[in-house]
């Protein structure tokens, strides 16, 4: 009886969590797309290569997932920071270039 109750609670908690997490993106997808389009047009206006996307956008997507951005990054270490993050965050070379371009322009 206890065992059944334990599993029932566990399954209920897992289902609720799954449903909550699965449903939440539906509410944000539309606004996110609008924001992405705005960022993309900004990056095109700034002359960033279209296929690599905006460096700021990549920075927000990959770096800000785990930590806040440092208040300032010395230009002397921008390349080292991004190479470090390429390994830590499993960035592709393309994303690394986009983020480096963004940080170098700050």
């Amino acid at each position, binding site marked *: 009886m206890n065992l059944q109750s*334990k599993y029932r609670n*566990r399954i209920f*908690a897992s289902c609720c*969590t799954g449903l909550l*997490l699965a449903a*939440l*993106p539906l*509410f*944000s*997808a539309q*606004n*996110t*797309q609008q*924001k*992405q389009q705005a960022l993309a047009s900004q990056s095109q206006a700034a002359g960033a290569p279209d296929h690599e*996307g905006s460096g700021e*956008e990549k920075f*927000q*997507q990959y770096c*800000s*997932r*785990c*930590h*806040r*951005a*440092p*208040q300032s*990054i*010395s*230009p*002397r*270490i*921008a*390349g*080292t*920071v991004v*190479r*470090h993050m*390429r*390994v*830590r965050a*499993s*960035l*592709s*070379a*393309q*994303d690394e270039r986009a983020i*480096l371009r963004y940080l*170098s322009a700050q």
Partner: protein
Amino acid sequence: MSGCEKILSIHRGAISRAATFLVAVCAVPLFLPAQDTPLISGGVGFLTSTTGGNTTYIPVLSPVLAAPLGNHLLVESRATLLESFFPKGNGQPGYTSASFKGLSYLQLDYLAAPHATIVAGEFLTPFGTYNERLTPIWTSNFESAPLIFSAGTMGTASSVGGMIRGDAVSTPNVSLSYAGYFSASSKNQQFNAERSAGGRASLFFPQPRLEIGGSYGRRLQDTHENFAGIHLWWEPANVPVKFRSEYAHAPHSEGYWIESEFRLTHDADAPGIRGGFAPVIRWQQTFRSSPDPTDGLPSANTRRPDFGLDYHFPHEVRINASYSRQFSSTGDVNIWETGIVYRFLFPTWRGK
């Protein structure tokens, strides 16, 4: 040639090769682009933890070194130095202390291809998300690691061997990242690791900023055991909230944690209270299926809500405070934690 001369000859060769390597390593920075200067980063903090009325005080320093070598290599390391002051116990008044100095990782990264990096040395075991992403003291929302932290991280949370990792596919709609490793058994005090293998793969959808992934690890020494885990992170761009969650299954226990961080504004750099405050909530639960005093997970089924408040001051200073209530058949307990952490980041030398 006598045996002694043979040994000398062998050592002379080894010394010569080591000297050549050192000279080459020292000379590399001279040819690096200006933006590839080696850096020192990390955090320094003062933490307190009160469990069941006993308070522990922990001053801690956690420096990170990253030094590029040429265009394809990177040496990186993170260390932790701390002293913890805790009550003597057994009815004795006063405090005693214990110190810890250790390397979390010391690795050489070779950027072999646009989508693959080869890592050698001591590295953080790539299981789940917490170990690699949230263990730095300047990153984690709570001082204490989740209850399931030791599941899949093979005891020491670090591995000694080789790893290949990267981003297999990267498009505007989805990216697939991966990490696969093999670790040898090492009893060295600074490079302690268990013989194991495993990896992690995750899909990230940039538009909704949703990540889902799975991890697998197999311990290959003593009793061979399997560990599995899944994680789900969602950090919407248009709502100032983050959700992180992880589930791990170990041979004798399993559990999960779900964490939410709220902000009062989209703009994390906004001045004052609006940009600085970040309330955080974490719920965690573990289920014990059979006794195992060595796996690091709670010995009985446990539930624990954590409530925290982080405040980010200007100049990279953060304070955090949290209250947790742990419910278990072995006894319920209150846990209070506070901390102040300063994060630093600077070049190893000043430029012209």
